[in-house]
C-alpha cells in the first residue's frame, strides 16, 4: 500500500492491509505478483497493484476522502466535461457545475450514502417536477450524480420572507401530492423520505419541484423496520425512525407533507402552533402516528382540492 523507508523489508514497497493495517509482505505466501492478497490477520482482500501505491500514509488517508477515487475511466472522462463553478449553500458535497460544450448549468452531488438503483431508475424514467438525472457515476468512495439545476427559491428561503397563505400552501402541497402519486405508484414504489422546506423549490414561474433523492428507498412491504434510520427530525414519520411495527412506506411521505403544510402556514411545527381552519383537519390526519390512518397521495390531493373549492 505504500513506500515506507522506515520499514525493513525485502521489497521496495511495504504493502499494508487497508482494513487492519497489518504488514502483508511478512505474511506467509505473500507475493507482489499475485495481483491481490487476502490478509491473514483480518481476511480483507487487498489489491496489489501500482494504483494502490502511496507515497505516504497521509496520501492514503487523503484518498479515502477523494470523491472521485475508483471511477471507471469513461466516468472520469465524462465527469471532467463538467467544470466546477461554486459550492451550493456552502456545502462541499453539492457543486454548481457547467458543461464545457453546452454551457448548461447542472448540479453535481457527491453522495457517500445512497441507493444507486434509484438514481439509475430515475435517469431512465424521469419523474415530472423532479430534477432530471443526467449522469450516475460510482467510485470507491462516492456516488457522483449530475442532475438538472432548478433555479428558484426553496421553501426555506421563501419562509425567510414570512409565512405563506393557506391558499399558497395548499397549492404547493397539491403539486407535491402529484409528484408523490407518481413516485408511490411506480411498479416498485419509491419513498422519498426527506420532504422538508429545503427540498421543495419554487421556480420564478411558480412551478413546484421536489429535490433530493439522497435518502429515498424502494418500498418493501415485507420489511418491518428500516435498515437505516434516515430523514430530518420532526419531518420524519415515527416509523421512519424506528417506532412502530412497520418500515417506511408511502404514508411516511404524507406525514412529512403534513408537517410541511403546517410549517408553511405557521412557520412552526404543530406541537408549537397548529394551523387554523379546515386545513388543520387535513394536516392532523396526515401526521397521524398510525400510518394506516393517513391519506394516500391521491386522497390527500382530493382533500386539498375540496378545501380550495370552498
Amino acid at each position: 500500500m505504500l513506500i515506507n523507508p522506515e520499514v525493513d523489508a525485502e521489497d521496495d514497497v511495504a504493502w499494508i492491509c487497508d482494513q487492519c493495517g497489518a504488514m502483508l509482505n511478512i505474511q506467509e505466501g505473500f507475493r507482489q505478483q499475485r495481483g491481490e492478497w487476502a490478509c491473514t490477520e483480518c481476511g480483507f482482500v487487498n489489491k496489489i497493484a501500482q494504483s494502490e501505491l502511496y507515497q505516504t500514509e497521509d496520501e492514503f488517508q487523503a484518498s479515502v476522502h477523494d470523491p472521485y477515487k475508483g471511477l471507471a475511466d469513461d466516468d472520469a472522462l465524462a465527469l471532467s466535461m463538467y467544470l466546477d463553478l461554486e459550492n451550493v449553500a456552502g456545502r462541499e458535497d453539492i457543486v454548481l457545475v457547467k458543461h464545457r460544450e453546452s454551457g448548461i448549468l447542472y448540479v453535481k452531488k457527491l453522495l457517500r450514502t445512497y441507493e444507486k438503483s434509484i438514481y439509475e431508475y430515475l435517469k431512465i424514467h424521469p419523474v415530472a417536477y423532479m430534477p432530471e438525472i443526467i449522469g450516475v457515476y460510482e467510485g470507491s468512495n462516492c456516488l457522483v450524480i449530475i442532475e438538472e439545476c432548478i433555479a428558484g427559491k426553496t421553501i426555506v428561503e421563501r419562509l425567510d420572507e414570512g409565512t405563506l397563505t393557506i391558499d399558497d400552501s395548499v397549492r404547493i402541497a397539491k403539486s407535491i401530492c402529484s409528484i408523490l402519486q407518481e413516485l408511490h405508484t411506480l411498479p416498485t414504489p419509491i419513498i422519498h423520505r426527506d420532504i422538508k422546506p429545503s427540498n421543495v423549490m419554487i421556480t420564478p414561474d411558480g412551478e413546484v419541484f421536489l429535490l433530493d433523492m439522497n435518502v429515498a428507498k424502494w418500498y418493501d412491504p415485507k420489511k418491518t423496520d428500516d435498515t437505516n434510520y434516515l430523514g430530518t427530525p420532526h419531518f420524519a414519520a415515527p416509523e421512519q425512525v424506528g417506532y412502530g411495527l412497520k418500515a417506511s412506506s408511502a404514508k411516511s411521505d404524507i406525514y412529512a407533507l403534513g408537517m410541511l403544510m403546517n410549517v408553511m402556514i405557521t412557520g412552526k411545527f404543530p406541537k408549537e402552533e397548529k394551523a387554523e381552519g379546515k386545513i388543520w383537519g387535513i394536516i392532523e390526519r396526515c401526521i397521524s402516528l398510525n400510518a394506516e390512518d393517513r391519506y394516500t397521495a391521491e386522497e390527500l390531493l382530493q382533500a386539498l382540492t375540496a378545501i380550495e373549492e370552498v
Partner: protein
Amino acid sequence: MQKKPTTELNNILGKAKPDQLDQYFKENKKYMADPQKGFYYYMKDVLCEKNIKLKDAYSFAGFTESYGGQILRMEKPTKDRDKIIRLCIAGHFSWDETNRALKLYGMNELYAKNERDACIIVAINNRIYDMSEIDEMLMQRGFQKLTEDEKK
C-alpha cells in the same frame, strides 16, 4: 494556510478612514484575495494534506528546487501548461485537484475531448504517477510527451 476571515477584514475596512487605507493594505497584504497566491496556497495545501515534500514534488516533476519554487510562487510565470501538469502529477494530485490547480494558475482544465488531455486524465485516474510511464503512453499515441529533454 493562514486566513483572516473576510468578515474580520470587512470589520477592519469598515472602521478605516481614507488615509488609513494604505496602512490597511500593507498590514493585511498576505490575507488579500490575491489570485496569484491562490495557486500557491492551493498547491501547498494539497501537498501538505498528502504529506509530500515540495522538494520531492519539484524533483519528480523534473525541476530544480529554485525553478520549482519560482513556478509555485508565480515569480516566473510560465505559459507551458505541461509544467503545471507535471507538478500536479509529481504531487500525486487527483484529476479534479489537477483541474483546480490549472484553473487557479489561469490555464484551461484538462479537457476530455482533447485526446492528449484524455490520456492524462486516464493516467491520473488510475494513479499512474510515473512520469516516464505517462510519457510512453503519450508517445505511443503520437502525442508530445510531458517531460522536457533539457533541464531547467
